[in-house]
Each structure stands twice: as C-alpha cells, then as structure tokens.
C-alpha cells in the first residue's frame, strides 16, 4: 500500500494523451483495435502504418519504449501459437531456412502475431495513460450499466487489500514452519483461499453496512462522475487516430 491510488500499469505524466477524457480514449482504443482486426493479413503496408501511428502516440504520451516492450511480454503464449502454426497448417508448403512449412500457416501465424501485438500495444497505451478509476468512469459515461462499473470500482479498490491479506497469511504460515512444496502445499494454500474468501465477503458486508449508514441507496454519488466530461474538441482529437487507421485500411483495400 502507500503507492497512491493508481495501478501498476499507469505511467504518471502530463501529456496531451494523458489529459484526454477517458471515454474518448476508450472509444478510440476499441475502434482502433476493431480496424486492426478487420485488416486483411496481406496488407503489410497497412500494419506498418498502424505501427507508426502507435509509435507516434507513444512518443506523444511519453511512454518509455522499455516499459511497452516489457509489458507486452504478456502476449508470449500467443507468439508460441503463432510460431507453431506454420508446421501444423494444411495447404501448399514452402521452404524457410531449410524447414518445410505451410504457406497458409505462415500467413496465419503472421496474422496472430501482428494483430495480437498491435492490440496489446493499443491496450497498453490506454492503460498507461489512464488511471484505472478513470477508465471505469469513462465506461460509465459511455453508458455501461452502473452495476458493472460499480462492481469494477469496488474490485479495483479492494484488490490490493486482498492481495496484501493473502501475502500476510502466507508469511504467517511460513514463519510457523510451513514448508510449501508442490502438491502438498495445495491444502494449506486452498484453505488459505477459503479464509481469504471469508474475509473478503465479510469485509464486503461491513463495507456495505458502513455505506448504508451513510446514505447509500445502490447508486454512487453523482459527484464521482462530475467534472471533466469530454468536450466536442476532445472527441474530434480522439477520433484522429482511429480515423487515420480506417483511412489506411480503405486505401489499402480499394485504392492504389
């Protein structure tokens, strides 16, 4: 705790991208992702253009390249899938570096690799420039049902509390000479989880009663959602990137 009210993915800074209203950024990220996924895999130029767009955004948002690279490692399992595909796909085969691989599989692997990577980078840009709470407020302004955003707000707020609780329980176990190893630790681990659930649920009951006694009626106070809603100018600014991506896609398919 004591790390402030952000989340580990947030990169603190004061760029134009950081100051854009969250709902604009979410809409732009979703649209950009949709355009990337809808692009036929043969349009190599289009993917290069998307990468340039993302790079420009990262520079504008002052997100360090090392941070982006490290965080995008989350995608690794799918890179493995992409690398395996050329060997398991059917269709005509070709030789690459002395290995016989399927052409269709090469394209398929490339498809997963490029779309997965671009998608992760877009999501990372969104997460890196927007505090988690703002993302949820943005979702709320985009007319996501209040129940969903409220649950998510509570979840983020108590995630660290629960993680710390689990850490303390584990430390207590180890300092009482528990020696966790492979399957035999499963029992201690799982009954610990049971206790964690009990504590989480009972904490939820206490939180609810505390909120109830302060006038909670099932909706969060409107004050939480007031203030910096997106202006028309921000919407236009936010539309630039997905619009550029869509233009690249259309140009690649029908033009030139």
């Amino acid at each position, binding site marked *: 705790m004591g790390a402030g009210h952000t989340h580990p993915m947030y990169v603190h800074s004061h760029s134009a991208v950081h100051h854009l209203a969250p709902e604009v950024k979410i809409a732009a990220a979703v649209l950009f992702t949709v355009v990337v996924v809808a692009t036929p895999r043969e349009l190599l130029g289009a993917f290069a253009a998307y990468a340039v767009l993302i790079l420009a955004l990262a520079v504008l948002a002052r997100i360090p390249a090392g941070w982006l690279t490290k965080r995008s490692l989350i995608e690794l399992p799918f890179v493995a899938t992409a690398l395996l595909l050329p060997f398991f796909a059917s269709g005509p085969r070709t030789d690459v570096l002395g290995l016989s691989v399927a052409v*269709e599989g090469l394209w398929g692997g490339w498809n997963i690799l490029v779309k997965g990577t671009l998608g992760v980078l877009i999501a990372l840009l969104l997460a890196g420039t927007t505090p988690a709470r703002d993302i949820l407020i943005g979702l709320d302004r985009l007319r996501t049902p209040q129940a969903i955003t409220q649950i998510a707000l509570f979840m983020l707020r108590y995630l660290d509390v629960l993680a710390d609780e689990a850490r303390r329980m584990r430390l207590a176990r180890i300092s009482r000479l528990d020696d966790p190893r492979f399957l035999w630790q499963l029992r201690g681990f799982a*009954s610990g989880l049971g206790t964690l659930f009990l504590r989480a649920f009972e904490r939820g009951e206490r939180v609810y009663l505390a909120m109830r006694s302060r006038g909670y009626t099932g909706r969060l106070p409107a004050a939480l959602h007031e203030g910096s809603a997106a202006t028309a100018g921000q919407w236009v600014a936010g539309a630039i990137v997905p619009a550029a991506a869509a233009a690249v896609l259309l140009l690649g398919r029908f033009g030139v």
Partner: protein
Amino acid sequence: MHISNGIIDGPVSLAYGVVAVALLAFCLGKARHDLSDRLAPMAGLVAAFIFAVQMLNFPVLPGVSGHLLGGALAAALVGPWVGALCVSVVLIVQALVFADGGISALGLNIANMALLGTAVGFGVLIALMKLLPRTAAGLGLAVFLASILSVTLASQGFVLQYLLGGDVPLTIGYGQISLTMAGVHVLIGIGEGLIAAVTVTTVAKVRPDLVYALRGRRLDPAVGGGSTRKFVLAGLGVAAVLAGGVSYLASGSPDGLDATTREGCTVDAAGEITGGSCIAQRAADHELGGSVLADYGVKGLDGSTGLAGLIGVVLTFAIGLGVFWLVRRRRAAAGAQAPAERVGAGN
C-alpha cells in the same frame, strides 16, 4: 489463458460479443434479485477475490502453467448469476486496464470463462449435490468434479470458436485439437478442482450460509470422520476415471466434426478453398500415424480411446512429477546452503 486479438476472425468475435452482452444483461437482472442494493460492494469484493485467485499460477506440466479460471468456484460460493457477473467484470478490467486478453476478443473470453465455465460448473455441482451426501467430503467431491468439467468444457468452447472463425485450416483436424485441449485442461481442472474443493469446504464449515450451493443449510456431520488423505485419494481416483471417460466422450463428438471437415472436402472452415484434398485426409498422413497410441486408441483394442486418454494423462502426469521432483531436489540442495532466503522468497 485469455484469447488475444487476431486468433478468431472479426464476424465471429462480434457475434460472440453480442451474445455475451445479452446473457450478461440477463445475469445482471438475476444477480440484482440475489443481492439487491448490496450488489455492488459484495460482488465487487467477490470479483477482487477472483481476480486475486486468477493471478496465482501453478505448474501443470513442465513449461505449461495454468491459472484458476474460478468459474466453478464462483458458482459454488455466490451462485451462477453473481458468479458469471464477477468473472466477466474481472475479464473486462483485465482487457482494458491490464492489457490481458484482446479487446476485440472480450466477447469470446467472456463466453468461455465467465458464461460457459460458470454455467457448466453450477449445473454439474447442483446435480452432484443431489447424488452425494451433504457432508464436507461430499461437497468437496462435487466441487472438485464440477471444476474439472467446467474447465474442460470452457476449453471446448474455444475449439468451437476456432472451428467457426479460425483463420487457418490445420493438418491435425478439429477432433485432435479438441482432444489435446481437453487433455491439458483436465490437468488444469484437477489442480483447480482440488483448490476449489478445499476452499469451498473451508468456507462451508465456518459459514455455511455463505455457500450458495448449500442453499442456506448446514453440512451434515461426517459419519465415519473420513480423513483428508482418504478424500484426496478418492478424488484422484475419480479424476483418473473421469480423465479416461472424458476423453472417451470427447472422441465421440469430434468424429462428428471430422465428418464435417471431410464433407466439405475442398472448402475449409473459413470458407476458403484449400484445393482438392481435405483436412481429414491429411490428418491420416500424420508422422506418428503408425504409433501405438495413434488416433488416440490403443492398437488392437476397439473402442479403447478412453484407455489411451487415461494412459496419456497418467504418462504426462508422471513425467511432470518426475521433472518437478528433480527440480525440487536441486532447489532443496541450493536452499540448504541459504536457508534464510526462504522467508524472503515468500512474497
């Protein structure tokens, strides 16, 4: 494991997204009925719990680690509606805030892990609770089996999605993908099931009112005072039987899938012409086609698919155990030299 962008094509992702939104809206209504205005704080804490649980990875095979999906666990503790809702919220936050799982694949992930996983888990759990005694062991066994089936069927959900919208026709055929996925996920499911079973019985002993699956009633006291070791052994035995049984069943339906791929001989699942020969034909020319366990049946035995599945599961499990044992010994040797590090490594 969360599906990322680009694995399943756009139209199928979109269709799954629409279905997921519709079903979530339905779950939301039901969840409100369960929790009324307590919904947000309670479900929020449960979602945080599931998020924390999902962050824990455990080794399945060397190089393959699984994490809890939590569908059956959530269904047992808070019921199918709140459970599906909580797992969905976890997936949404993971996609938007932690870049885990593609944004365009959100509908696919919610459909597999939140909706299918929870629904199957709860259905199996309720059915088994009717059959088994209402003791701690009975409840644990029911949760254990429900978790395995829930995880395995969620993986089959992915296979279906790939069949509908996968970009690349494969040589190995959907029946075998389905079997491979089922095999790996039965192992993950056993891990998940053991953890979920102990978790739920722990809660049930202290506060039975918090276990949705018990419907507000207490557990019956155990008759013979069955020890945990007996329970674990029985559980593993059932798992082995199930592993054989599940792969036997799984081999039945993919034959249907294989037949479909064979039917459309010049057209693959994505609607593209592959040219002359079909997936199924090529699958027959697999390099290991002559091996003893080829086509997941033991040679010379008819209908032995389940047996082959069982042998496969036991073999992979044994190999995994052996490798882990070696690693552990090495680590124990290293740990003996620096015993003080162990407490530090507890974080």
